[in-house]
């Protein structure tokens, strides 16, 4: 089976003031990667104007593009409209569901969505008490359940989970401990560990760390742009070939 090169970045926070700047870094992406995954917070305020900039920045690339939205993309209550703008430009947008791409004859399955917070095992919120707290925790539980179903039903050779919020606390190192419950939830990792995946990508934690692991041993990468410091990370999935230095 061919190896796959997964390019990924999140938290590009585009707007009119950054129009064209990111696009210039995408030239030649087909030589470095087979697919580009966008891990949410594509805009800053979640406006339709910013959504248009995002759609124009990532359209007509020589590799398929799959995106999820982030909390910033929800701020103006237009996530469905922004997703539709991206889809009109040929960009797949996941909302707790999946897409399967044929890449070099390999079926690459991508499952995911925005994700949500709540905290990490032993230090997290529970569905208890006031309705506001219950709603907060229940939102994450429902998302995790939908990911579990999407992964169970996925028919693919390689499986990648794409999220905005983090499924583990490894990749939050550098963020203040006090805000971890707003940065992710272990329920997301638990769902993915139960069904299996080759890689989980997320953003959201600008001051975090790139590399982590789920309790089940799945590699996690925080691809928030401020963490990467480069236009995108590239992660190679597959059997090791004859040349250990190249995918």
């Amino acid at each position, binding site marked *: 089976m061919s190896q796959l*090169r997964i*390019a990924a970045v999140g938290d*590009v*926070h585009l707007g009119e*003031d*950054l129009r064209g*700047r*990111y696009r210039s*870094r995408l030239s030649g*992406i087909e030589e*470095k*990667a087979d697919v580009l995954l966008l891990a949410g917070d594509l805009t*800053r*305020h979640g406006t339709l104007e910013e959504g248009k900039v995002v759609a124009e920045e990532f359209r007509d690339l020589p590799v398929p593009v799959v995106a999820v939205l982030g909390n*910033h993309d929800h*701020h103006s209550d237009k996530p469905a409209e922004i997703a539709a703008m991206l889809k009109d430009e040929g960009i797949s947008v996941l909302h707790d569901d999946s897409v399967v791409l044929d890449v070099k004859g390999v079926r690459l399955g991508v499952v995911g969505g925005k994700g949500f917070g709540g905290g990490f095992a032993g230090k997290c919120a529970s569905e208890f008490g006031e309705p506001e707290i219950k709603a907060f925790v229940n939102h994450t539980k429902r998302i995790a359940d939908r990911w579990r179903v999407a992964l169970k039903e996925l028919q693919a050779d390689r499986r990648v989970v794409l999220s905005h919020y983090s499924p583990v606390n490894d990749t939050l190192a550098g963020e203040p401990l006090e805000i971890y419950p707003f940065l992710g939830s272990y329920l997301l990792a638990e769902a993915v560990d139960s069904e299996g995946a*080759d*890689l989980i990508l997320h953003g959201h934690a*600008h*001051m975090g760390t790139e590399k982590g692991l789920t309790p089940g041993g799945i*590699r996690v990468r925080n691809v928030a*742009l*401020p963490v990467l*410091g*480069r*236009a*995108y*990370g*590239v*992660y*190679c*999935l597959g059997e*090791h070939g004859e040349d*250990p230095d*190249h*995918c």
Partner: protein
Amino acid sequence: MEAPQYVAARVQSALAEDDRTHELGVRVDVRGDQLFLRGQVGCEERRELIADVAGEAAPGLVVHNEISVVDVREPGGEERL
């Protein structure tokens, strides 16, 4: 005199909620009459707007804008998993 922790919290909330900024990742520290801002943003215009909003939320403090602009470097080599 207002405790500096409350001033810093007010500035942080303003940076998150003001339509000009919506920045969640800015660190705000108050020491005496000095206000320090640290973090990263995408361009110089956003960096300046953060200082404007912070200054309005904490009038009378001297704003030290130590926020840097993210330099989007070329992508590097891939990581084999």
